[in-house]
């Protein structure tokens, strides 16, 4: 029977989805959070998924039963009431239940939205600040405290919140490291904040999720989370060995369309990039 096959197929999706979403693979970063931000977001994903799965299963069961039971065959004994108007009681129930479900999702949503605004106050030191600029089609990371700059790769300390200040020169991008947490826009002339934390040392993949022209798919970067002593060692090694960033090279990186290899600098010019000036080189 075609109808039975359809019901079976619907059911098999549900099973398949549950299997895949519970993580039988090792490469679903959104579902394998590596830090508190991604962890809280994952919690909401799970909670909303299972509530929605419950609703979907109820609908699928009613759907399957009704199309089987009320099919138009000559010897179908099921009751037929062509003039049935509706039912206030039933309609009230299926308005009320979604209201409750929406509340069950809305409350944790709002709570988490507020909670994720800033790094927790309990952190011992001020979080490390990294200024992130997207320029077509590169990622520029500046560490104001130590004055160093990296291009197309990011090194952060593990177990400590990192405050990112995001901006852009030219088109918009989004800064996304799925293992550590969700994305935020890089927009010209605006600075948006996003904090992330890696719970343990490791290497993660980041990318832009917002289309910004033909080179956009190559706007990925690696994120290396190091233990705090290792991170400090890395900082002092960069300060000692990497070249300083000249004004000319800085402009070249910011204002010329194109890809770039990974670069490291021990300092960068003090002029703040705002995205307003000097776009003539395009």
């Amino acid at each position, binding site marked *: 029977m*075609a*109808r039975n096959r359809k019901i079976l197929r619907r059911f098999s*999706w549900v099973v398949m*989805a549950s299997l*895949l*979403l519970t993580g039988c693979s090792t*490469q*679903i970063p*959104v*579902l394998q959070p590596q830090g508190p931000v991604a962890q809280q*977001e994952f919690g909401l*994903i799970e909670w*909303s998924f299972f509530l*929605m799965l419950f*609703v*979907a299963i109820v*609908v*699928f069961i009613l*759907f399957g039963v*009704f*199309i089987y039971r*009320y099919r*138009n065959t000559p010897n*179908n004994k099921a009751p*037929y*009431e*062509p003039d*049935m*108007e*509706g*039912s206030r009681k*039933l*309609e009230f129930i299926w308005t009320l239940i979604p*209201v409750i*479900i*929406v509340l069950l*999702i809305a409350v944790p*949503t*709002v709570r988490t*939205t*507020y909670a994720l605004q800033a790094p927790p106050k309990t952190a011992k030191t001020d979080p490390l600040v990294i200024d992130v600029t997207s320029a077509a089609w590169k990622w520029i990371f500046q560490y104001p405290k130590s004055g160093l700059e990296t291009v197309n790769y990011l090194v952060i300390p593990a177990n400590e919140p990192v405050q990112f200040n995001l901006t852009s020169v*030219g*088109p918009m991008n*989004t800064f996304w490291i*799925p293992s550590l*947490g*969700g*994305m*935020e*826009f890089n927009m*010209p002339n*605006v600075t*948006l904040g996003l904090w992330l934390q890696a719970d343990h040392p490791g290497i993660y993949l980041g*990318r832009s*999720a*917002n*289309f910004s022209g033909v080179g956009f*798919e190559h706007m990925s970067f690696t994120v290396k989370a190091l233990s705090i002593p290792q991170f400090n060692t890395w900082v002092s090694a960069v300060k000692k060995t990497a070249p300083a960033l000249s004004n000319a090279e800085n402009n070249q990186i910011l204002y010329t369309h194109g890809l770039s290899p990974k670069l490291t600098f021990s300092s960068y010019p003090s002029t703040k990039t705002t995205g*307003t000036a000097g*776009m003539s080189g395009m």
Partner: protein
Amino acid sequence: MSMFPHNYLIYGADVSIVGATALIIFVLTYFKKWKWLWDNWITTVDHKRIGIMYILAAFAMFFRGGTDGLLMRTQLALPNLHFLSAQHYDEIFTTHGTIMILFMAMPMLIGLINVAVPLQIGARDVAFPYLNAISFWTFFFGAMLFNISFVFGGSPDAGWTSYAPLSELQFDPGPGENYYLLGLQLAGIGTIATGVNFLVTILKMRAPGMTLMKMPQFTWATLITSIIIIFAFPVLTVALALLTIDRLMGAHFFTIAAGGMPMMWVNLFWIWGHPEVYIVILPAFGILSDVISTFSGKKIFGYSAMVVSLATIAALSFTVWVHHFFTMGAGAAVNSFFGVSTMLIAIPTGVKIFNWLFTMYRGRIRFTTPMLWALAFIPTFVVGGMTGVMLAVAPADYQYHNSYFLVSHFHYVLIGGTVFGAFAGIYYWWPKMFGHKLNERLGRWHVGTFVLFFNMTFFPMYIVGLMGMTRRMYTYPAGLGWTALNLIETIGAFGQGASMMIMAVNIVRSIKFGERDVTGDIWDGRTLEWSTTSPAAEYNFSVLPHVTSVDEWWEEKKRGVVRPDHATFKPIHMPNNSGWPFLIGLSFFVAGFGLVFNWWLSAIVGALGIITFLFLRSFDYNTDHYIPVDEVKRVEAAAGR
């Protein structure tokens, strides 16, 4: 940028466009059909013919947009492919999105609205038939202007959302983006006029006795949709105009250089764009209500709740636009508000889903092709809707935003809702449009294969999105675990293409072999469109019906009413055909094409054309005629009445 993009795929497409055009011209000339085409179609003001032209154009655009989709899926089948260049891929995803929303989904639904709504309300025409023709021709020429970008000058490549500053001249030189702005602008003019037209038609032209709460569900959906169009489309008009002025005249509405706000484009775009997704889903909801009720042999369950939920969805659709950019740093209060307001839409939508289910409860379900589309819709749309609620969870959306999870969600609701609904409508009203049925066996194959391959294409996208794949990537590296899922998606996409070929075969075969509809009521329908002949005569109803209940025709059949009553025939007042709407559309095209290339001469010629034809029309006093009783009798007799 050169006038003709250098790429062999594009050359191939150019050749096929030129070939198809030459073939059409040859066929029309050889069979001496030019006059027939002009008299019966190009100059028509008959809402049914205009509806059919909308649907034909939408099918052509479906083919174009679908081919775009297949090209994209081919490019993404495996990692590191070089089937398309990055630039070409960017153009294709831009045109795919724009065409499918604005030149496929909308005209398909507006076509069905044109065909069915005046018949459902027992009217002889729409309120402004001449304006209706202008709407069609501005849409048509807008679509053509958008499509020739592909042949002349290069297609738009900044995405269907065209976010500034990427879409500004500085980052996107050349005419491609201008085509987007002007093509949409022309089509938008037609859409606003259609919204006004159907609002007035439904409010003022219902048959005697049809109170608002006795209107069929599809008519209700159209009324609500018209209201959304009237509120939402002017925002698009303004946004497109501002960006056009930026690009053509060097203004800075959206550029930073002189204090413009790129963010304002995003706001304006989605203040239109979110209601837009309801403009394309509510009419589909209306079709599904009528189809489910007809083929369950039952009244719609909870009529007034269905109407209230349509109105609630429409109102909420204007309060959720920020959910398209939760990640733009609007702050926790704003994100919370728009997250919760988005979730609220699930409540009226849920009410509709349960009412549809309970319309089948204690019914007698006939598994006809339109009903199969409606049945396929329910679980598919539930999957799409549920993931929509997940996307509304603002912090979680930080992980879904612009990923394939989102891409999958909107294909589940737009295909599972709008396209399944439109197909249900097309199979349902086909006999009313053309006087014959589409083949049911091929129809079942079409539904079955399409639903199967649709899920094969889009379900894996949820997973690959959670794996970190973002939309609009023209290629991806190996080793991220994305390959197998992408390959499955590509196979599914080609399956959907093959499934559409079944529909094409069905249409061609049914013209010759399809079951003829001699009664006008081939589905045992419930609403007034089934009380007249198939296809309906120019005047729709020889005698206007008098309405006493929601399922008027169903009740009349039960009471044994026989239509029409020959004694009551009177002369029928109808509008004359007119060539002006076509010429006005053509002038818009000439003006638009000029603006695309900054050829001001062409723009001025086009603008003068528009003004001249409007002026001449205002002195055209020969706009209407009466059909004498004898002719009405002859037409009715020919239809066996």
